[in-house]
C-alpha cells in the first residue's frame, strides 16, 4: 500500500484536472526462463491510477454518502416510457434521449426492496475489497422498471426476501460500494463498520 502522503489525489481547477501524489510506481522488468534456462519472455510490471469522471451520475454517488438512493425518471410527455423510473440511475431516457429527472427513492427502497436473484461466491478478482464469500444480490423495487445490483452484508440471501439499503456515511468511498443491503429488521448494531440505515 502507498503511504497516505503518496496516494494520488486529483482536484479540478478552472475546468482542468490538477494531480498530486504518486500516480504510478516504476518496477524493473524481470526475465522469464524455461526449464532449460532459455529466455522465453519478460515481466512488464504496471501500477497506474486512472482519473475518471462520473459526469451526470455524480449526484447518485454523492447522495450515497448522505444516506440517500437517487434514481432517475423520464418525464417527457411525448415518450412511450414517460414515468419510467430507472435504477440503475440513467442520465438520459434510453427511448427519447431526453434528460431524466433525478428523484429520491430511498423510501421506496426501504419499503419495497426485494431480492430478485442472488449468488454467493468465494471467488474474486485482483483489487477486490469485499469480504468473502461475496453475496451478490439483485434488488427489485415497486414502480421501478429495472433491477439494481448490489451486495448483502448480513444474513443469507433468498429470492423474494425483503431487504433494506444501508449506506457508508461515515467513511464514504464515493463508489457503488457505499450502498449495501441487509434483511429488513436488521438492528443498527449488526451493520458493518461505517454503515448506517
Amino acid at each position, binding site marked *: 500500500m502507498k503511504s497516505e502522503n503518496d496516494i494520488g489525489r486529483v482536484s479540478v481547477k478552472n475546468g482542468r484536472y490538477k494531480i498530486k501524489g504518486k500516480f504510478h510506481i516504476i518496477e524493473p522488468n524481470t526475465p522469464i526462463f524455461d526449464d532449460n534456462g532459455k529466455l522465453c519472455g519478460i515481466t512488464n510490471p504496471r501500477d497506474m491510477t486512472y482519473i475518471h469522471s462520473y459526469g451526470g451520475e455524480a449526484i447518485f454517488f454523492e447522495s450515497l454518502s448522505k444516506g440517500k438512493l437517487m434514481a432517475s425518471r423520464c418525464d417527457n410527455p411525448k415518450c412511450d416510457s414517460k414515468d419510467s423510473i430507472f435504477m440503475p440511475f440513467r442520465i438520459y431516457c434510453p427511448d427519447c434521449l431526453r434528460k431524466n429527472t433525478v428523484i429520491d427513492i430511498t423510501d421506496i427502497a426501504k419499503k419495497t426492496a426485494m431480492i430478485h*436473484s442472488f*449468488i*454467493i461466491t468465494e*471467488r474474486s478478482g485482483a483489487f477486490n475489497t469485499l469480504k468473502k464469500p461475496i453475496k451478490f444480490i439483485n434488488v427489485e423495487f415497486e414502480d421501478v422498471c429495472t433491477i439494481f445490483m448490489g451486495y448483502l452484508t448480513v444474513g443469507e440471501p433468498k429470492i423474494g426476501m425483503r431487504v433494506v439499503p444501508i449506506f457508508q456515511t461515515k467513511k464514504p468511498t464515493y463508489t457503488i460500494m457505499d450502498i449495501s443491503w441487509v434483511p429488513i429488521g436488521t438492528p443498527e448494531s449488526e451493520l458493518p463498520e461505517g454503515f448506517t440505515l
Partner: protein
Amino acid sequence: MIKFSDKQLKIPKMARPVYLATSGMSRFGRAFPTLRTEELCIEALTEAADFIKMTPAELKQYIHTAYYGHFADHFGDQLLGEAVIHDRLGLDPLGTIGVKTGGATGGSTMWEAIKAVASGYSDCALAMGWERMDEVPTDEGNHLISCAADKDWETPLGHIYTGYYAVMAQRYWQIFGKAEDSFRKTMAEIAVKNRGYGRMNPYAHGGMKITVEDVINSPVVAYPLRVLDCCLMSVGAACGIICDEKTAYELTDNPLRIWIGAGSHTLRVADRRDMKIPLLPNEEPGLYDDLGKRFPGGDRYPGFSSFLAARIASYYAYNMTGVVDPCEDLDVIELHDAFTISDIQSYEDVGLRPYGEGRDYIESGDGYHTNPKTGKPGRLPSNLCGGLIGCMHAVGATGLMQIAEIGYHIWNRWAEIHGDEKKWKKFGREKPKDWTDLQVKGAKRGLTISHAGVGSHVTATILMHPNHLLKED
C-alpha cells in the same frame, strides 16, 4: 428499446451471395509461454491455406481487406494489436480494422467480413480472431474480464465477472429448473458431453472423461455453478476466408454459403426492462401466454433468464435463410456454452425448444452425436468440438473456431482434420485409444452462436452447402 419498429425488424439483405472458402485454427491451450500471438495466427492462416491446397502466399494474393477480432487489449498490454498481426501476416497495405464485442468478438469479426463481401467492397476478406489470456496472473485476469462489466456499477463489486453472470444462472435454475436435482443432473450431462467430445479434438485443451458425479462434486465457483460447469480460459487463433461466388470457386470447388445475424442487449443485466417475447418462425402467437403460470416468476422477459440478443440474432439469421424449425432444418450446431446453464438458456433463445423447456434438448438425446437413449444419430448434435467447456474459449477466436468446426462437418472433412495422428503429435497431445469420428453424416446446414458475457452482443451464423439452400436468393 422494448418495442421494435418494422424498420428495425427488417430482415437483413445481402447484395450478393457470400461464401466461406476455407477456415483454419491454431492449437488451443491455457498458456503458451514459448509462442507469440503472431505464431498462433500464422498457424491458423497456414491451416486455412493447406485446407484448399494452397500456400499461405498464394491465398494472401486473394485477400482484399482484413477484419481482426481481439477482445482484450489490456491482457496483452498492447493497443493496436491488430496492426501487429496484420503486419506479421504480411498484409500491409490492405485496409484493416479491429473488432471487439466481448465473447462475441469472433462472430462479430465474421459479421464485418461478410458485410464487406456482401456489399461488393471486397471480393475476398480475411476474418481472423485470437486471444492471449495467459500473460497476467489469474486474479488479475479476473479483474480485467470484470472491466467488461459497468466500471462504476458492477466492477467494484468483487472484480469478478462470473458473479455478475451467475445471478442470471441462479434465477433460471430456481424458476425454470425449479432447483431440481434432475435439472442439476441435466446441467452436468452437458459438461460430460462437451468435455467428452473435446477428447476427440487435437486442437482442444479441455477434453476429459468424466461423469455426472464428477461435475456435481467439483468445487463451487458460484452456486449452482461448479468448476466443471464453466468454460475454459484459453489462448489461440482461428480464421475464415470470405468470398464472393466467383472468387470462392477460384479458391476451391467446394465453398459453403454463409449468412449472419447480430443482436444486442444492455451491458448491465440490471437495465433490462420487461417486454413481449419476440417470436421465431417456429413459434405461434400465444405460445407464451401462460409461461408465468407454468413457471411462477418466469413471466418477466427477458428478465434474468433469457438472452434477447440471441433471440434477435436468430430471428434475423433464420429469416434471411429460410430456417423455420432449427431442429428440422439444420444438421449440426455450435452454441456458446460459457456455462452449462447458459447452454440450456440458449436452446430456448435460438428456438430448439420453447422458453422454459430447454432441458429437454439434452434429456431427449437430440443434442448428442449419438443419442444415448436410442443409439441412433442425435437429431441436432451440438458442440462436437467440445465447445467452450471442452475445447477452448480464446475469446476473439471462439466464434471463428465454431464456424470452422461447422464447416468441417458440411465439407465432410471432420475426421481428416481431427483424426490425423501427425497433428496430435505436433500439438504435443496423445490421440485417445478410443478416438471416435464425430462427423455428422450427410450434414448440409449448420448454425453457430457467438455470445458476449451476459448477452450484450450475439451473432448467429448459418452455413449451408450451396446445393441444399432452403430458399432462393
